[in-house]
């Protein structure tokens, strides 16, 4: 994180860095040491709250079974993390890797396609005037307030009519729809894609669709990355839809797979180790994606909240 160029937030205020460098000493003294100490203690305590569970997971995943209960739970014993990972991956012909791959396909593919179509729709709602535009936008906005879990059961009933339950598509297709993405894309497009630019592209003879993909998309990148990221997380975390749709273990996303293992721990105790290691491995991809894309999504986020 620190290797990245200064966060846009700090940069945005422009005056801030210079200002905070020069008069920092006097201002720092003006804030009472008590307040500074208090702030630090609050943040320190909550840092422990947020990070200790993950630390525990890392430590627990690195122990072999006999040490799990007998050694200090918050510190390493013999470091057998990689051996454990090897066992996890080998268990039942690598079904865990299959789950990770499924999650990556559901979330990566779904978020990528979903972002493009939400971006196009939001762009059209922002940049073109046509009858029914406000109606469409309001219906989509209503869709933001309809929770995805409420749709899981009717989707299951519909998919079972056409024998599509327990298939890849039964989880993938519904994940493509992101009303919130349309909302964010519209707000951002109307604010950051100048009409003059589209007009100029028209004069150059570029078609509307081509203008969108070559010119406008570039201006919308922060919003689109935000939409992608949040849809990715939403699909990656989605539980109800796969729970209700899928029976075949090889189609499970990693969350559902780990859930299934965790509910069998009492019958098959060895699964407890695999659940913990699997849990640790499954959160690493998301952390990496967030770190890599953070300079984009933080901008897009503020655009959405300004309204």
């Amino acid at each position, binding site marked *: 994180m620190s290797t990245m160029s200064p966060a846009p937030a700090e940069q945005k205020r422009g005056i801030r860095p210079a200002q905070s460098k020069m008069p920092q000493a006097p201002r720092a003294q003006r*804030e009472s040491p008590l307040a500074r100490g208090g702030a630090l203690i609050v943040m320190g305590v909550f840092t422990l709250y*947020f990070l200790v569970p993950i630390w525990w997971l890392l430590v627990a995943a690195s122990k072999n079974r006999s040490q799990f209960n007998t050694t200090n739970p918050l510190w390493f014993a013999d470091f057998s993390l990689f051996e454990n990972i090897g066992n996890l991956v080998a268990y039942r012909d690598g079904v865990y890797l299959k789950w990770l791959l499924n999650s990556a396909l559901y979330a990566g593919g779904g978020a990528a396609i979903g972002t493009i179509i939400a971006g*196009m729709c939001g762009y059209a709602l922002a940049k073109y005037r046509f009858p029914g535009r406000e109606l469409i936008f309001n219906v989509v906005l209503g869709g933001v307030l309809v929770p995805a879990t409420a749709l899981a059961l009717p989707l299951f009933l519909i998919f079972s009519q056409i024998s599509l339950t327990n298939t890849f598509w039964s989880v993938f297709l519904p994940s493509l729809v992101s009303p919130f993405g349309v909302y964010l894309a519209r707000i951002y497009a109307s604010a950051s894609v100048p009409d003059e630019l589209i007009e100029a592209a028209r004069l150059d003879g570029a078609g509307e669709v081509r203008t969108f993909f070559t010119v406008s998309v570039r201006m919308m990148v922060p919003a689109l990355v935000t939409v992608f990221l949040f849809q990715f997380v939403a699909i990656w975390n989605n539980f109800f839809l796969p729970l209700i749709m899928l029976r075949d273990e090889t189609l499970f996303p990693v969350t559902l797979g780990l859930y299934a293992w965790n509910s069998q721990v009492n019958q098959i105790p060895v699964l407890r180790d695999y659940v913990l290691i699997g849990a640790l491995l499954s959160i690493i991809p998301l952390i990496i994606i967030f770190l890599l894309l953070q300079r984009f999504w933080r901008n897009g*986020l503020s655009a*959405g909240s300004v309204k």
Partner: protein
Amino acid sequence: MSAPAASLTDARGGAARPSKSRARRSRAPKVRVHHTGAILAFVLPFGILFGLFYLVPIGYAIYESLLVIKREGTFGAATEVFGGFTQYFLVFQNGPFWQSIGRVLMFGVVQVPIMLGLALLFALLLDSPLLRGKRFFRLAFFVPYAVPGVIAAIMWGYLYSPNLSPFSAVTENINFLSADLVLWSIANVVTWVYVGYNMLIIYSALLAIPTELYEAARLDGAGQLRIAWSVKIPLIMPAIVLTAIFSIIGTLQLLAEPQVFRSFSSAVTSTFTPNLTVYSTSSIPNFNLAAAFSVVLALATFILSFTFLKFTQRKEAQ
């Protein structure tokens, strides 16, 4: 790097731009719709999918909820026939369902203010000159958001358990998985995951406030607390409302965490939350009743978040 920053400034300019768009709208009636093909190409992909996977399921749920199963004698073939509001009468007579609604409402009344209060506090601290190492804290607090609800629940399930927990000194004496406490143990899991996310939304809104707005107050000798209370919080109200609405929706939809906790605690029943009721009713299977549950729940969610939105908007207007 500078490109996103520049476009963000535009975004802010765009927020205060009603006059420009009004000018454009007044011109609109004279202009006929151009680029119909392009508009269709942009809108249809989303429109079709939205129709298929949002509108049709909603309609289908309502349709299913109006049917009842009729059997010819005890062992005869079952057929679905129109039953009017029969299923809804069953929903309203269903004690466990309303108990579960009451449970998540209680959960929301306690958990949402705590979570958003913490998020606001952290965001204000990150935005104040009181703190150093802001980037570290911002990141550390956000990391739990990368943990899916199911995984977080599994993890905390172990942390709560009397014999496996690293804090067994505490968990041996307080049973976090007991019938009295398990709801609040789940509330802690949800808080743990979402505080950082809400903090970032609020923090982004804080960063969008021009410094000049409170520079004057500072020169007048206002302390950080005063500035936060009288200048910053009123300005970021829209962001707070947004996080509150999403939190309310999330609360009513609770499913993954309690479902996981069923394997840790027998106190979490199959009707612990409304969505668990939907799930267990549909696995009986009684799809018509489950559909009616779904419709009532979606309606309740919609009404609650919509009312909250209108209520806060009116309050802001005053």
